[in-house]
């Protein structure tokens, strides 16, 4: 399990959003809004996925983009090739075990 992060609910939500369009880059605030999680939850998850697991890559926006919109540079996160594969697998596993747990609580 060492090369997979703990699949907490917020982590799963972040990965779900990222995997909904794996090639699309997303910024932190966007992920907070899409997952309905606090920035305080989302940024540490992003930092872990980027630095510890290498699933995400982080880029600063080019000046041409943010100057045209009159704001400061955003930082974008995008799934790495390997990250997309691993994240999808980890998410499926986590969803299955969650389903099993739900089944147990229902049957017991």
């Amino acid at each position, binding site marked *: 399990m060492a*090369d997979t992060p703990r699949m907490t609910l917020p982590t799963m939500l972040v990965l779900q959003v990222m995997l909904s369009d794996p090639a699309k880059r997303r*910024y*932190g*605030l966007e992920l*907070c809004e899409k997952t309905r999680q*606090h*920035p*305080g*939850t*989302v*940024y*540490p998850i992003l*930092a*872990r996925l980027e*630095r*510890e*697991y*290498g699933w995400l890559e982080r880029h*600063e*926006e080019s*000046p*041409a983009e*943010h*100057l*045209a*919109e*009159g*704001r*400061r*540079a*955003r*930082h974008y996160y995008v799934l790495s090739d390997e990250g997309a594969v691993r994240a999808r697998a980890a998410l499926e596993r986590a969803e299955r075990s969650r389903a099993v747990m739900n089944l147990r609580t229902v049957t017991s």
Partner: protein
Amino acid sequence: MTSLVAPLLARLPGGFTASERDRIRRAYEFAAHHHAGQLRKSGNPYITHPVAVAEIAADAGLDCAAICAALLHDVIAGTRCDAGQVRAEFGDEIAALVQGMAELDRRHDQAALDAAGDRVLALKVLDRLHNMRTLQPLDQAKRQLKSRQTLDVIAPLAKRLGLPAIADELEAIARGHLPGDTGVAHRALALGSLILPSAFRGTYLCEWLGELDVLRSRRARAHFAFGVLRGMPALALALRHPLRHPLRHPLGHPLGRTLADRLPAALRWVLRSNLRTWTPLAALLGWMILETARSSLGDAVVILITVPPVLHTGVSCLRAKLGLDGAGE
């Protein structure tokens, strides 16, 4: 309309010859003719803008060609006049300057800035200074856009060209039109980010400022900053974690890792001997007892009775954990 050129001519330093003054007057008349009927957003006649830029250029000590180019700087982009007419009327030098400014208006990118000569860039800076001074009639989005460009591109350019006073004025005006750079949210985040490893503090602060720029209401910004602050310890922990992909992340700290490795070794070395363990602890305990005894002798006695056994238990526990059972006995 000649009333506008008279103050400009009066403003020129003494070094200008009669023919230079005449050329400036002709440039004004040419520009006034072509901009006739055009208005600025403020409702003033358009010609007031090139004249103001020319005045700033004269005050900044630019030469005759640059002042003429300042007067003519919008005729190519903003009227039916073309570069050929400017060249026929005023010669190659002035036409090149005017064309250079028109080119910069068309393309805002870095390549265009790099290609432009210093005199064109200086004129561009002065043009922006007057536009910033008269920014108020524009709508909020436009004002913020221009202010952001000014802070990021034009003010640094002014500094590089040796116009520090103009750079300062540009920055001051631009900041006034932008939502609080130095707002509470920013300050709170800057303070909170102190617990992040120093190599990451800057980039994360930039990232959050980029997000704050999009949040329009003060409430939303405060909410965002509060959320980030709540997660700051977790983020610090995530960033301090040793990397598994050191090649992909040149920012990683090899030092942090070796320190973390060395600490248990040092602790082991201290705990292996009774002398190394108890000398510092006894000194600390002695100081504590003396300090307490000054105010209350009773408390000092209580410390003397209770603390050494607690310390002893602690040391034994640590030794057991580190596999040093038997050491120092």
